[in-house]
């Protein structure tokens, strides 16, 4: 994740360090900047080839902004983006456009993501044309091949998007991204708008492509079940910050951040005979323009050790177990010493809290 690589290691495919995106809020006379929405507030992680990092969180947590800021479709406020060690934020103009080839995106809304005035062949071909990857009959052949690779007929290239269903459009969107042979794809809620049966088809397609092309995905979703299915590691976001980052296995088995625990327990189990302890959070997600102090989650937190220090200390994302990073000063071990917590009004020492989230057969 953060640094500590020996010089011999090749740099990861994509590394993000302390990425920040603030949106100004203009109010008052002449529209002065009076506040900022901290949509992405210091996010760091790394992804290597063939890996999927899942990003989960509720609406307004900044996951979509994160995806677009990494691709510089929204210019980040600060932070570093390294693509195979090269500084992606430093490039401009022609070099930036050339580099974009390696980083692609697949959108949530299958209706808005394709230009309704453009044939799907032209849509898939666009990247090939921009980067001069092929011309004429060779380009045609590639478009055909790409469409077939995502499970569509090659002959449909001259048809328009409105003739296709949501799932098919999502496949077309994937083919468009693949056309430039990227190494990394941001999948921004790629299956959220689809029906369950179609969802499964698209998830399978993404998994097949990853296996065949050693693609790395940043898989953004609010649906924890889908993320569990596809991700190797998962980052949980809350109000612009990553609050937990772990392998999918560790996260789903033993979530340590109380927010992740609540999120997991809220998933309805598709089985009427199993019941599990449910943590029902009170209240709503606060506004990212005016987040709570300290740990953003503390007003809704159900950790028995929650105390005054939680409202004062901004918890660092720290490694609680190998590869398991959590931002909570009440889950031991923590790098925030007890005397520091005491200074900030702590009353409860850190103690491990792990509600049983495994489904119980009734």
């Amino acid at each position, binding site marked *: 994740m953060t640094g500590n690589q020996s010089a011999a290691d090749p740099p990861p495919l994509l590394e993000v360090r302390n990425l920040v995106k603030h949106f100004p809020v203009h*109010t*008052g*006379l*002449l*529209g002065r900047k009076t506040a900022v929405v901290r949509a992405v507030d210091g996010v760091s992680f790394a992804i290597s080839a063939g890996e999927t990092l899942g990003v989960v969180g509720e609406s307004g947590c900044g996951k979509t902004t994160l995806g677009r800021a990494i691709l510089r479709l929204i210019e980040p406020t600060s932070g570093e983006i390294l693509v195979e060690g090269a500084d992606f934020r430093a490039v401009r103009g022609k070099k930036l456009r050339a580099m974009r080839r390696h980083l692609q995106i697949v959108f949530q809304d299958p209706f808005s993501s394709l230009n309704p005035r453009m044939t799907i062949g032209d849509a898939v071909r666009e990247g090939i044309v921009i980067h001069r990857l092929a011309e004429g009959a060779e380009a045609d052949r590639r478009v055909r091949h790409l469409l077939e690779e995502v499970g569509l007929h090659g002959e449909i290239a001259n048809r328009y998007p409105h003739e296709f269903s949501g799932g098919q459009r999502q496949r077309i969107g994937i083919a468009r991204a693949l056309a430039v042979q990227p190494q990394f794809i941001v999948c921004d809620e790629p299956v959220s708008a689809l029906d369950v049966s179609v969802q499964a088809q698209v998830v399978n397609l993404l998994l097949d492509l990853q296996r065949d092309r050693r693609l790395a995905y940043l898989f953004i979703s609010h649906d924890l079940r889908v993320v569990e299915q596809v991700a190797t590691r998962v980052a949980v976001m809350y109000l612009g910050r990553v609050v937990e980052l772990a392998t999918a296995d560790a996260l789903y088995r033993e979530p340590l951040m109380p927010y992740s625990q609540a999120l997991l327990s809220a998933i309805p189990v598709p089985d009427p005979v199993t019941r599990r302890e449910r943590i029902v959070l009170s209240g709503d997600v606060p506004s990212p323009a005016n987040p709570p102090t300290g740990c953003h989650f503390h007003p809704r937190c159900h950790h028995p050790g929650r105390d005054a220090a939680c409202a004062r200390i901004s918890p660092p994302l720290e490694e609680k177990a190998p590869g398991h990073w959590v931002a909570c000063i009440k889950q031991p071990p923590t790098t925030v010493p007890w005397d520091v917590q005491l200074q900030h009004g702590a009353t409860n020492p850190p103690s491990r809290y792990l509600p049983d989230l495994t489904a119980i057969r009734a």
Partner: protein
Amino acid sequence: MAGFLLRRAAQSVAVLFAVATLTFFLLHLAPGDPLDAIASDARIPSDVRDSLRVRFGLDQPLAIQYARHLTGIVQGEFGYSTSQHRPVGDVMADVIPNTLLLMGAAMFLAFAGGIVLGALQGGRADSRFDRIASALTTTMATLPDFWLASGVSLVFAHKLRWLPIAGKVDPAMHMLLSPGAQILDVLRHMALPVFSLVVIAGSVVARYQRAALLDIWSEDYVRTALAAGVPWRRRLYHHALRNALLPIITIFGLSLPSLVGGAVFVETVFAWPGIGRLAVEGLLLRDYALVLGVVIVTSALVALGSLLADVLHGVADPRMRNG
């Protein structure tokens, strides 16, 4: 809301600034200079002309002239009317109340009538009544102001002699009338110009109102009310109409310039002593200061009106109040 109002007021000032700048450049891009009207008069000796040029500041650099132009507007000085031989500000002050009277009456009636008609139509969309009313409003909305005003004047004033032909008051009798009769006299003179304006503007309002109502009729919250057992009449007049008024307020702000434009023609046809007629007269007499003064002042009135519309919108829409 206070912040919004301040911002909105600042915008109005910016609009006025832009108008003032535009008029200034129109003035200086024009062939020759503004004194050409006098200059063409051979009886005026050239040294007089030069002294006039100095007096009007036309020998100064452009930037200084621009600054003077702006400060003049801020101080309410719009120069000297060459046709009326007195300051433009005074000339306008005499006629603006007349225009406000005419426009105020016309706008009130146009919006009241248009909203009612549009609501009735929207409530019975595609009925016989709606189709006939739509055909009528569509036609009325396209009538050119001057042509309608001329026709109205021909039929009701010249042929039928129901109402006076022109002016604001009866020039011979007015001063001799009792106060009540004086008011009636003005109303009789207003009737035809107001009618002409109302027919056109009211049709436009009715068309928008109908469309707005139909748009809102398919909103989710109208369906919620339906599913909750709220009667049709209440859904229409309480839920839908209340929301449909919001776009109409916006239309009010946006339609002000064209309403003022319409007033220019109607005032001309009925010889109503208003600011529009003043502008046309000034133009015929090549009184550029008067025309520019009218443009700036009417733009200011329009800006004020649309500010008012925005305030109204803010009052009517709770989302604006603390959003």
